[in-house]
C-alpha cells in the first residue's frame, strides 16, 4: 500500500491529533519523512506493528484513542513495541525524543535517552565526560579517605 520511503504513523480515529506534533518535529529534525494514516481503533501495540509492517523503512508508530503513542519495528513481536509514551503526561520534549528515536532507528544511529538528550554534544560526549570527571574525583577522594581509615 505504501511505496515511498517513510515512517508510517497510524492514528486511530478517536485520537486527538495535535498531541502528536512534537513527535513529528523530532522526525523532521532528523530528516526522515513520515506519513500519517487514519486507522480503526485497535490495541496500540497491534496498530503500531501494522504501521511498521507497512513502512518501507520497517519503522512505524501509532497513536491510540487513549493518547498513548507507540514506536514499533517490523522485526519486533507485536506485543512488545520498542517504546510507548503517554502523550497526556509526557513533556513535549520526551515526545520529540520519541520522534528522534524513530528516525534514528531508521538511520541505525544510537538512540537518545532523556537524561542525555538535552546535553548531547560534541566529540566524546562532552557533558558526560565532565560529569564523570567529577564522579571520578569524588571516587578518588573517597578512596583516599577509606584507605587512610583502614590503615
Amino acid at each position, binding site marked *: 500500500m505504501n511505496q515511498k520511503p517513510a515512517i508510517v504513523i497510524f492514528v486511530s480515529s478517536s485520537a486527538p491529533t495535535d498531541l502528536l506534533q512534537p513527535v513529528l518535529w523530532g522526525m523532521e*529534525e532528523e530528516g526522515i519523512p513520515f506519513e500519517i494514516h487514519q486507522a480503526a481503533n485497535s490495541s496500540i501495540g497491534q496498530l503500531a506493528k501494522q504501521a511498521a509492517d507497512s513502512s518501507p523503512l520497517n519503522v512505524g508508530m501509532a497513536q491510540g484513542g487513549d493518547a498513548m503513542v507507540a514506536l514499533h519495528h517490523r522485526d519486533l513481536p507485536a506485543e512488545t513495541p520498542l517504546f510507548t509514551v503517554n502523550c497526556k503526561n509526557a513533556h513535549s520534549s520526551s515526545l520529540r525524543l520519541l520522534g528522534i528515536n524513530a528516525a534514528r532507528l531508521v538511520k541505525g544511529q544510537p538512540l537518545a535517552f532523556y537524561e542525555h538528550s538535552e546535553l548531547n554534544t560534541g566529540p*566524546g560526549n*562532552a557533558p558526560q565526560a565532565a560529569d564523570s570527571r567529577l564522579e571520578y574525583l569524588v571516587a578518588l577522594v573517597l578512596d583516599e579517605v577509606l584507605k587512610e581509615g583502614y590503615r
Partner: protein
Amino acid sequence: MAYIAGVDVGNNTTEVAVGEIRPSGDVRFLSSAIVRTVGIKGTIQNAMGVIDALDTALQPLAMQRRDLSLILINEATPVIGDVAMETITETVITESAMIGHNPATPGGQGLAFGETISFDRLTKASPAGRWIVVIPGSVDFQKAAEHLNEAMGAGVQIVGAIAQNDDAVLIHNRLLRSVPIVDEVAHIDRVPLGMPAAIEVAAPGRAVEKLSNPYDIATIFQLDAEETRRIVPIARAIMGIRSAVVIKTPRGDIQERRIPAGRLAVIGEQQKTEVQIDEGAEAIMMRVEEVSPLKEIRGEPGTNVGGMFEQVRKVMAELTDQPVHAITVRDILAVDTFKPQKVLGSLAGEYALGNAVGLAAMVETHKLPMQRLARKIEEEIHVPCCVGGVEAEMAIRGALTTPGTRAPLAILDLGGGSTDAALITEAGTVGSIHLAGAGEMVTLLIDTELGLEDKELSEDIKQYPLGKVESLFHIRHEDGSVQFFQKPLDPKLFGRVVVLTDGGAKPINTSAGLDKIATVRRQAKHKVFVHNALRALKRVAPAGNIRLIHFVVLVGGSALDFEIPKMISDALMEYAVVTGRANVRGLEGPRNAVATGLILAHAERRAGS
C-alpha cells in the same frame, strides 16, 4: 611414590599443578587449577588463594590435602609496575573564539561570513550588514523561523544562525532562504555578540573544508602571518567534523601551551644523564638505551611522573618491609600519545588533541618474603611447604614442556605491570630480565586516547573484540562477520559500538567509530608489547642478537590475548625466530608453566641426590 603440588602465585592468578613422582624419578602430572590471587603477590593473604587452588586441583582426583607430601611455591621476583600520563601541550582559548563541534543534525549548507547579533536585536539590525543570528534555547524553533523570515522580508541580510537547541533542521525547513545553521551550542550565552564570525556546514558525509584550513580562516578574517600561526589549533580542532563556527574577538587569543612536564634523571652503571619529559617518548627511550644498563631512574618531584615513582616505591617498600630509599625505579617505558582535552574557554565542549607522554615504571628488589607465605600455608593445612625455585628458571622449565621446542629458548611473559623475559642457553644457563610497561600501560593508553576516563571499560576494550549493533537483532563484529540474536537487543545498545565481553555487550559511549577504537587499541598494544618484546629479547639474547634465539614462547595471561601473539610473531618474523603461544605439557596452553617447572625441578633434584 609422592604426590607433589607446584604453586605459582602471580600478580593476578594463582596456578597449581599436582604431580606424582615415581621412585624412578619420572613425573606424571595429574591435575591443575587456576584461581584469582588473593591479596598482593608475596603477602600472607595469598595463602587463601593457594589453598583454594589446591582444593580445586585435588577435587577431581578424589584426594585430600593431607595426601600431598610437599607443596612447592615459587620464589617470585618482586616486580611492580605503575603508569602515569604527563600532558605536554594543551589548547587554551582566552575569550571564546571558536565553536567547532559536531551536532548530529545541523541545518542548511555552505560557508557564511557575517557579524554576530542576538536574536532579540534582529528587528534593529541594519540592512547594510550581514548577520549571523544567535538563537538562545528559550526561543521556540517556530518563533525563531518566523522572526528570521520577517527580518529577511524586511531586507535584513541574514547569512547564518547559531542555535542552542537541537532544532537547526526544523528552523532551516521553515526559512524562506536557505542559510547554514549550527545547533546544540550548549554555552550560547558565551558567544560574543557584534563580532565578525564565520559559519560552515558541510554536505552530509563531508567535513568542513574552509574553516579547517588556517589559510582560509586567514582569508576570511584578513589575518596577518602571526595571527594565522595562532589560529592553527582551532583549524586542527575543526578538522574532520561537519559544522563549525569561528568568531574573531579583538582580544581573543588562542594558545597551544606547552606544560612544563619535568625531568627524568637516568642513572646508568657507567654514566648518567637527564631528559626532559616533554622531549617525547623517543628522546626518553633513546637516553635510556644510551645509559643502560640502568641503575636507577628518578622523576622530578611535583610532577605526575614523580608522584607515580614515589607511589610505586612506597608500595614495594611496604610489601617487602624495606625502607623506601632502598627501593629504586629500575626501568621505564615511555610512549607518545594523544589526549583529547576540553578546550579551556570553549563554547560547546570542544576538544582538542593535546600531546602527552605515558610512562610506565618498574621497581624490583631482591626477594619477596615468600618464606613467610610458605610457613603460613604449612600452619593452615599441615602439609610441608617450601620455596621451590627462582620464578624465571621454573617458567623456562615449564615452557620447555611445550611440544616442538628446545634450547636456546626464550620465554616472554607479558603481564599486567611488567614485561618479563628469560632465556635458557644450550648449556642450560638461565638469564632473565624485567621491563616496565605491560597490560596496565595499554589500558591507560586506550583510556587516554579515547578520552573515556573509565578504566574498567578501557580494560574491556583491551581484552575483547568490538562490534557494532546494526539492528535490534544483529551485531556486526569488527572482522565484518554478522551475528544474529533471537531476542531483541537492548535499545540502549542500538547503533552503538560495543565491546563484546564475556558478560555480554557493553556500549562504548564515545563519538569515535569502531575503526578508530580498534586502531587505538591495536596501536596501544603495539607501542607497549611489541616494543617491549623486542627490548626484552635483546637484553637476554646472546650478544644482544635476537637471531641467536631459536624459539620464543609466550606465557602468562597476555599470551591468551586475541591479537598480541600475532603482533609479536609478525615483529619477530624478520629475526627468523619460531614464535608462538606456549602449550605447557602439550595441554595447558600458556598457563601453568611455573607450577609445572617447580615439580619437574624437584623431581630432578630428588633423582640427583
